């Protein structure tokens, strides 16, 4: 089975350690996205899986085979590069066939495979063209064709869509998703774009400073981030995070945000914690502009309204902290300029330890 197991994988460059003992088990046919800011070690981790970087410590297993010291060509993985890395002197057909020719596959078989792949990726009409004569999306498809023609155990994608414009990126995202569904090959995808991660992944691995912060299904990460970093990284716009102090009794904890008392969820971790400094996390989509029973109302002054079409972002602030509200427009934004209060339901609030950034999870979340 073509699963991938990273067991305490470490990467050092001289004295500098950039990946700190990563443990990750990727199931066969799973689509896992490594996401994180620049320099978090996600690309280095992918390159170690590809065999393009040496593993300093730990064990890497691909399809039940220990591959730490196996050359990239013998790992049975294929990679799609950020900058395409198409051979400019070869046409599309030759680019796709390159790996097969190197492996001395017979010519009729190569022709058949190339034709099949071109069919899947809609490249049949472009087989004679050189990369320079293709659009960005077509080049990216050729790069994918080069990967899938070999029928590898694992696909590796290193930010493959980051050079495309927004429209094409959306289109290619869907194509990658469709391709994965069709081929069912284990895929590991690196991106810094959380939208790509959310839309493509079976599971997302959020990384920071060479460590895994959280692994989970997209909606698990969205709904139950383990810390302020994940809460700020997953979701667009990111979760509003306001520093406050726990007040009130155990039955009715609250925090003063700006000058307003806002009810907090009744979490066991907050019991007897009056006076404790916390970070109150509120998703922009959980900040409501219409009154709701039992919700805390925070008065606000609008700074800016950003229209996205069916939705709008209301930029405001609570105290000195910027605060964003995401709301539906229903085809009209004029009424949004009249918004002077935001309503927060206590159950939608996340509370994090201000010192460690770790969430005070609801007991049912485990």
């Amino acid at each position, binding site marked *: 089975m073509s699963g991938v197991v990273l067991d305490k994988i470490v990467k050092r460059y001289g004295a500098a350690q950039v990946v700190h003992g990563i443990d990750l088990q990727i199931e066969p046919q799973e689509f896992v996205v490594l996401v994180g800011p620049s320099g978090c070690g996600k690309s280095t981790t992918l390159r170690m899986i590809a065999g393009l970087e040496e593993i300093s410590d730990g064990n890497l297993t691909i399809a039940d085979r220990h591959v730490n010291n196996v050359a990239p060509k013998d790992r049975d993985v294929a990679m799609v590069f950020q900058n*395409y890395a*198409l*051979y*400019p002197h070869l046409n599309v057909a030759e680019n796709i066939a390159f790996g097969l020719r190197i492996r001395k596959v017979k010519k009729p078989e190569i022709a058949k495979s190339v034709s099949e792949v071109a069919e899947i990726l809609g490249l049949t009409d472009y087989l004679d063209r050189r990369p*320079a004569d293709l659009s960005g999306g077509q080049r990216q498809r050729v790069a994918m064709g080069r990967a899938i023609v070999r029928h590898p155990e694992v696909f590796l994608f290193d930010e493959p869509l980051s050079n495309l414009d927004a429209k094409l990126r959306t289109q290619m995202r869907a194509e990658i998703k469709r391709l994965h569904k069709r081929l069912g090959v284990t895929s590991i995808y690196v991106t810094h774009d959380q939208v790509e991660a959310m839309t493509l992944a079976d599971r997302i691995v959020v990384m920071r400073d060479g460590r895994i912060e959280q692994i989970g299904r997209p909606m698990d990460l969205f709904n139950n981030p383990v810390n302020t970093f994940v809460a700020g990284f997953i979701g667009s716009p990111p979760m509003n995070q306001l520093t406050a102090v726990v007040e009130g009794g155990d039955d009715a904890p609250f925090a003063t945000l700006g000058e307003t008392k806002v009810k907090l969820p009744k979490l066991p971790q907050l019991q007897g914690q009056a006076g404790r400094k916390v970070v109150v996390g509120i998703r922009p989509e959980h900040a409501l502009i219409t009154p709701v029973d039992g919700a805390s109302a925070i008065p606000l002054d609008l700074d800016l309204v950003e229209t996205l079409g069916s939705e709008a972002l209301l930029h405001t602030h609570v105290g000195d902290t910027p605060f964003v509200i995401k709301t539906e427009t229903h085809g009209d934004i004029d009424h949004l300029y009249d918004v002077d209060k935001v309503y927060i339901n206590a159950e939608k609030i996340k509370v994090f330890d201000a010192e460690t950034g770790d969430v005070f999870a609801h007991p049912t979340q485990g």
Partner: protein
Amino acid sequence: MAKMNLYSRGDKLFVIANMVLIGIFALSTLYPFIYIAAVSFSSGFAATAGKVILTPVDLTLAAYERVLSEPEFWRSYLNTFIYTIGGTLMSLIIIIPGAYALSRPQLIGRRFWNLVVAFTMWFNAGMIPFFLNMRDLGLMDSYFGLIIGFACNAFNIILLRNFFESIPASFEEAARMDGANEFQVLWKVFVPLSKPAIATVTLFCIVARWNGFFWAMVLLQDESKIPLQVYLRQIIATLSDDEEFASTLLTAPYSVETVTAAIIVCSIIPVLIIYPFVQKYFNKGILLGGVKE
């Protein structure tokens, strides 16, 4: 609509001055070619008397008839081709893998090896030790000696190494992922991507080999192995020392000057033919489209 003037007076003067300087330089480079061609088609007397300036005087093909009727000329011409083609191929066989190895970050002791190669550009053992070395290796008086003895050139290696280093690493990584070994990465990816640089190095090698004179004269004793440049020297010496020929200077249809010029013209022709074919590779843009910048 009035045409917009994008250039200031200073810009225009700068461009004109450049054009004039480049024009003078081009003419000064071109004139020797024209002069040699004119002399080769002139009569011996006119050439010796210094009457030829730009065009042939007393137009004649006598010098060419004299040169082309010599079997030694054709033999040396063939030898020059052997040394040029063999030497250039041998140079490329050594320079391309050498430059590739020196360009790879994973080469153990890369800085040291680069220094060792670059060192030979500034310092070398000198003529006598090199001669003794060639003699002791049994490479005197042979085609192979002249071909292998000068095959490695540090300047060309460094030129090509720098080009290889400019090729994005992702090409190599993609090829390695596709299953290519080091040799396949070099021959199937780097060499095709480096055509402009390899064409330049090839031209340098061809010109150096074609014009190679000194070491051919030193290392070769066998007359049947000498290249055209050495033959040219011999014919100048022979005709200059020939008293009988000197006495016919006023009446002979050719002179030492016209024969020399005719040989030079014959020796230039192959280079002039090759250059346009190589020149097409002297363009940028071969990497266009392969990677997203």
